[in-house]
């Protein structure tokens, strides 16, 4: 027999969520705008390489540094590559960096934090010490050090961003786990025979997720800015991969000579993406926890 009883309940929950979302968006049109932007970014990330007019890696030195025109909407860069194609294709990499960093730090920081909050005692102390040690570092220099030591690959940039944000996530997760330690559903899970780790991973962590989602949105923006900063120092992704940060860092050198489009368009894309993630974070905060509305 079909689960008739379950469906209306699930439907009701879904409708409530949608209605709540609509309410929040109506209250705050900016959040709605951010949502739309987010969807556009995801679309660009998925479809990007297939819809761009030029190959982002093909150079054509006879067409170097041409200003925006009908042929090249965003102009060409110093090696004759089409800036528009590169900006769109870069969306995928930057989005990946953002999402991967956030996923990694959620897992690392989230698990460590909930473990610390749940078990207390030594776990709490160790995680606390690690978090304090990381926080005592000047964070950007720590990220630089990690990438310089391990090599400037995308994985290392993601790892560096995750490590640098670890303390924040650990702290939030710990606070939430502390609150939920004695909650009813945890007791129920324990009584059903779940081991502590299963409880952590499948009961508490998912409950912590909505609270963290706000921070995660902000971290997505931070991850992209971090990658851009590293590129400026020379520790960014390897050429010729298109990535907004490195395009801005390289393009900045051409501003004084008047080829503004080289840095402007990737900079604009970067700004729009980070802007969107930040606004989304604010909006999500309103949606998820009205008590914390700012």
């Amino acid at each position, binding site marked *: 027999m079909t689960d008739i009883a379950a469906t209306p309940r699930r439907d009701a929950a879904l409708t409530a969520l949608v209605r709540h979302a609509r309410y929040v968006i109506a209250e705050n049109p900016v959040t709605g705008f951010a949502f739309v932007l987010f969807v556009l970014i995801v679309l660009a990330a998925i479809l990007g390489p297939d819809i761009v007019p030029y190959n982002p890696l093909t150079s054509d030195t006879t067409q170097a540094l041409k200003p925006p025109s009908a042929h090249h909407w965003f102009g060409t860069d110093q090696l004759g590559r089409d800036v528009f194609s590169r900006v769109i294709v870069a969306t995928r990499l930057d989005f990946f960096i953002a999402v991967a960093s956030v996923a990694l730090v959620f897992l690392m920081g989230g698990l460590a934090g909930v473990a610390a909050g749940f078990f207390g005692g030594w776990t709490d102390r160790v995680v606390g010490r690690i978090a304090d*040690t990381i926080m*005592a570092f000047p964070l950007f220099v720590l990220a630089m050090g990690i990438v*310089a*030591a391990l*090599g400037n690959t995308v994985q290392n940039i993601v790892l560096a961003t995750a490590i640098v944000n670890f303390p924040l996530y650990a702290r939030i997760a710990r606070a939430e786990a502390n609150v939920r330690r004695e909650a009813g559903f945890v007791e129920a899970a324990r009584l059903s025979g779940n081991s502590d780790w299963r409880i952590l991973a499948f009961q508490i962590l998912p409950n912590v997720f909505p609270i963290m989602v706000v921070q995660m949105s902000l971290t997505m923006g931070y991850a992209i800015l971090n990658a851009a900063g590293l590129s400026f120092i020379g520790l960014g992704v390897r050429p010729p991969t298109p990535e907004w940060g490195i395009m801005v860092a390289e393009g900045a050198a051409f501003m004084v000579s008047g080829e503004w489009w080289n840095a402007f368009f990737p900079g604009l894309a970067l700004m729009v993406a980070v802007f969107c993630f930040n606004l989304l974070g604010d909006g999500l905060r309103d949606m998820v926890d009205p008590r914390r509305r700012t």
Partner: protein
Amino acid sequence: MLTMILKRAAMAIPSLIGVVIVTFLLTRALPGDPAAYFAGPAATPQAIQEVRVKLGLDKPLIEQFGRYVVDLGHGNFGNSLTTGQPVLTELRTRLPASAELTLLGLLVSILIAVPLGIIAATRPNSLIDHACRLITTLGVSLPVFFTGLILVYVFYYLLGWAPAPLGRLDVFFDPPPQVTGFYLIDSLIARQPEVFMASLKQLILPALTLGIFSLAPIARMTRASMLAVLSSDFVRTARASGLSSYTVIVTYAFRNAMLPVITTLGMVFSFLLGANVLVEKVFAWPGIGSYAVEALLASDFAPVQGFVLTMAVMYVALNLIIDVLYGLIDPRVRLEA
């Protein structure tokens, strides 16, 4: 109070030890061989090995670490390879440069963000509120070096309003006699008003760059805090008693709302001190940030280690000061502690 300070300091020691160990390991993991660098462009492998022995880099890591810690105890932070100077001397000259810039940036940020936050809080969800949020978020959505470069391009190159991005002082001024290392303060102490004006002019663009970048957290926290306070009982009483809007907001609400904002300021300050790095590169600022970055890229251990340790100590001290300030401002906190 004193016991609290001592207890806090003691709790911070394991973090500092952790920082020293991690930095040591991290710098040793950097690619690049200082011995090859020192030995020069034409060195044979034997020559490089000789230099390595001379620098003590052939000893096992534990021994090198032990040596490092002993040196630290004597206040010897080692020498920089790239500049050839003792790290401690360089840190001492460069730290005030970064601190002056960061403090001024923070000041600029406060001057803009706090009023914005207050205005936004007094008219929640209005157009002004949204505009404030948009403006401040925009500031933090651009990479800080890009903001700096755009400011230089517009205000120096195109308009000529700002002075040349040549560092802390124009070529024709000598720095004031060192008292604090802050040119603004030292030039006033030494009664050199033209040096004061020259330093101030050089500070404007980089401070603005840093300030723009830190608008968002301060404005957001001010707004949140003010909102919370404005809905509290005593404010309602004040309004009901007929006090003017200005008095209510500034004299009563603002002072009480400042507490969380101060914590945020502390966090922002320590974040800026680390993020200084990029701004210093753009403006040729002789601060510790640019020092550390050049050293890191040249695999020059000693400055990186010295820089990180200094920053960590400052961070701990800063947190301590904020906790003490908290206690001073809000007696409730003191009593509870």
